[in-house]
């Protein structure tokens, strides 16, 4: 097992707009090869008071990009004299991702609220395209969510509907994607400010008749072994 493999966040990240703001959601697993290096990481990082990003891909690359953009945005805010817009934040991320595309391996979803455009989500995948979307999904777990969103997404949801959608989607992806796991974190950004929520494993719905959460495997082991199956 290669513990020196680059730290990657095989991830599920989601950003969704709703009527009045955005909801960002992510799982919390950071893996080094097959080992889970951090089972409770926070992939939703703050850039400014009103703009947050979801990071996926290489942990080092995404942390560095977010640190640079936070720094540039801070300067920009001082020079501008008012909070930066989500569009500017997303474009700063895009410029770094695109101009360094040969060296970086990170997919980012930028989400926030500003007074000009309201809630906005921008997806910036590998390579550095920037695309403004009503909702964006990213990371390895997102493969399992395309069909789900095609069916479940609708315009003009309320804040609670949007958050429930995000939590449901991340937990579905966690159930199917080996590289996603842990807890579900959400961040809701709107004109009133920012709310962070945390959904530990036992609060998530079970999808595939998984075992009920146990305190110790010993409880299960001591149960009588089942009868052999007859075909």
């Amino acid at each position, binding site marked *: 097992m290669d513990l020196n493999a*680059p730290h990657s966040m095989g991830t599920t990240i989601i950003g969704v707009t709703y009527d009045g703001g955005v909801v960002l959601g992510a799982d919390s697993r950071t893996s080094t090869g097959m080992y889970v290096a951090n089972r409770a990481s926070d992939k939703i990082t703050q850039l400014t008071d009103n703009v947050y990003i979801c990071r996926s891909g290489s942990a080092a690359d995404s942390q560095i990009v977010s640190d640079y953009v936070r720094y540039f945005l801070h300067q920009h805010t001082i020079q501008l004299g008012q909070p930066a817009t989500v569009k500017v934040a997303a474009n700063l991320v895009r410029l770094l991702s695109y101009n360094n595309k040969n060296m970086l391996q990170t997919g980012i979803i930028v989400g926030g609220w500003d007074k000009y455009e309201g809630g906005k989500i921008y997806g910036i995948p590998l390579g550095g395209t920037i695309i403004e979307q009503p909702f964006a999904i990213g990371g390895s777990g997102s493969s399992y969510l395309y069909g789900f969103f095609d069916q479940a997404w609708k315009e003009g949801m309320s804040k609670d509907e949007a958050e429930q959608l995000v939590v449901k989607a991340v937990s579905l992806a966690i159930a199917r994607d080996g590289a996603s796991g842990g807890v579900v974190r959400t961040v809701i950004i709107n004109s009133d400010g920012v709310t962070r929520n945390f959904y530990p494993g036992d609060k998530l719905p079970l999808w595939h008749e998984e075992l009920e959460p146990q305190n110790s495997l010993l409880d299960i082991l001591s149960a009588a072994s089942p009868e052999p199956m007859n075909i």
Partner: protein
Amino acid sequence: LNSKFEMAKVEADVPPKGGFSFDLCRRNDMLSKKGVKPPSYLKTGTTIVGLIFQDGVILGADTRATEGPIVADKNCEKIHYMAPNIYCCGAGTAADTEAVTDTISSQLKLHRYHTGRESRVVTALTLLKSHLFRYQGHVSAALVLGGVDGTGPHLHTIYPHGSTDTLPFATMGSGSLAAMAVFESKYHEGLSGQKEYLRNHLLPNPRTYVSSKGYSFTKKTEVLLTKITPLKELVDVIEGGDAMEE
């Protein structure tokens, strides 16, 4: 396509002189094709751990340094000093962990002189992660950084590629899985000081195998001296003599 937009160049800065010099890579490649084996690194195949408890942070490490299958140092120091209130455990290539912790430790000292304040753990964290990211993982140092500053106790892990995590308990190195198993089963918030976690540290690696045949030199060896004279007897040691002059 020469004139780009006038906006400030948003590219990452080119690292100052220094950075990884690839000049010798061609030569190394040629040599290895000719069958010359590169010198092996002194690797600390290691277990390093850290944990936040009630009053602060505890860092722990083993003391074995290996060179391939051989134990090169039975009692090496893997917990490096960074600042009076910050220490850093290092796993990976011994030279890299030493060098990177020494470098950042001296940068921190200069920073303390400059600001007139105690160093903060996040400062050390940022300096270390920027350094490691610049070298794109070629500086093979996996670190557990811990300390207590004005903002409270902090514990971070830093990986060779420059990513960091902030955790209440952390393990790194080849023994990290075993150590993490212990932490995951026993850790809880608000651990008190002494009793819970001290393990046997007074008896490092006792020599358990004693050959029944005893040890003897091969027949042809010429034994010159059977008595070992401590060097002190051969030299006059003047305590507190004049300081050396240039």
